[in-house]
């Protein structure tokens, strides 16, 4: 089973990297870009789990290791069963 987990800074936390990317895009003339938030993507391959177990374990992994819950939030999707 393949899972994609997206970790990014919470809305309440300033993201200077995202702002820098936005400024670069503005320099190139893409003024339509109102905001950029930068994050990390993790692709996990899980085995020996049914969907229900996976749905339990993925947020656990994200919360305990992949994201720092003080500053980051995460979302995830199962790519292939």
């Amino acid at each position, binding site marked *: 089973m393949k899972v994609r987990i997206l970790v990014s800074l919470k809305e*309440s936390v300033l993201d*200077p*990297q995202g702002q*820098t990317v936005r400024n670069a895009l503005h320099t190139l003339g893409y003024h339509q870009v109102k905001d950029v938030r930068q994050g990390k993507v993790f692709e996990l391959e899980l085995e020996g789990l049914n969907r229900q177990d996976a749905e339990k374990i993925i947020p656990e992994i994200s919360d305990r*290791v*992949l994201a*720092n819950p003080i*500053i980051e939030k995460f979302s995830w999707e199962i790519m292939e069963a």
Partner: protein
Amino acid sequence: MMKFGVVVFPGSNCDYDTFHVLQNVMGQETVFLWHKDHDLQGVDCVVLPGGFSYGDYLRSGAIARFSPIMREIKKFADSGGLILGICNGFQILLEAGLLPGAMLRNKNLKFLCQQVNIRIENNRTAFSGAGKKGQVLRIPIAHFDGNYYAPPELLSELEKNNQIVFRYCDRKGQLTEEANVNGSVNSIAGLINRQGNVLGMMPHPERASENILGSEDGKVIFRSLIDYLEKKKGTGKKKTVRAVRPAVSPLPPLIGTF
């Protein structure tokens, strides 16, 4: 004499500097503690040194917290043992939950390697008792992720409990935006846990403990720890800060594989 333990993770790079200052400048018994060890060798104080443990993979300090030695360090902290985290050591303490809050990338997105001034905000701790409140220390920083962040509720709690021990300031001790080089909330450069036995700081006192390196201000932190431990142990033989400098003895080689 007190016994200090300097933890060595794969990627620690201030371990020898810290060991040198504790042993040769401060004249204390010092041992290295290997990240795979399960024994703190009866040390009075654990120091987590600076560096890039585990290559700063995932987040600075995020992987080091899973090292076997960290289990012992948590137990040591729970029993009131003194723990000093410097730079990456501070980041590890945050990731391990031994100190509250988190580190963000520096506000200017640059690795900062420079002298900074920090002001002692609270000198009633085991880590700052040899200094005066309001005293300005000149100590270098070297980090990418030193922009300390705490959510508003936590921040007001830290302020209320006097847990902020050092703040970035200018030469005169004024808090300015310019002096707060990495963008930390409330200019926080170092903080202590509620119990008062775990302190993390981004500046490197071990790089400012000899005049030849431009500053001896970092010794205030080590002196404070030694004074505190001596008082606690009741050895009573309090030496002055200008202790006779012991002969420099060679540092032990590192044994073990990463």
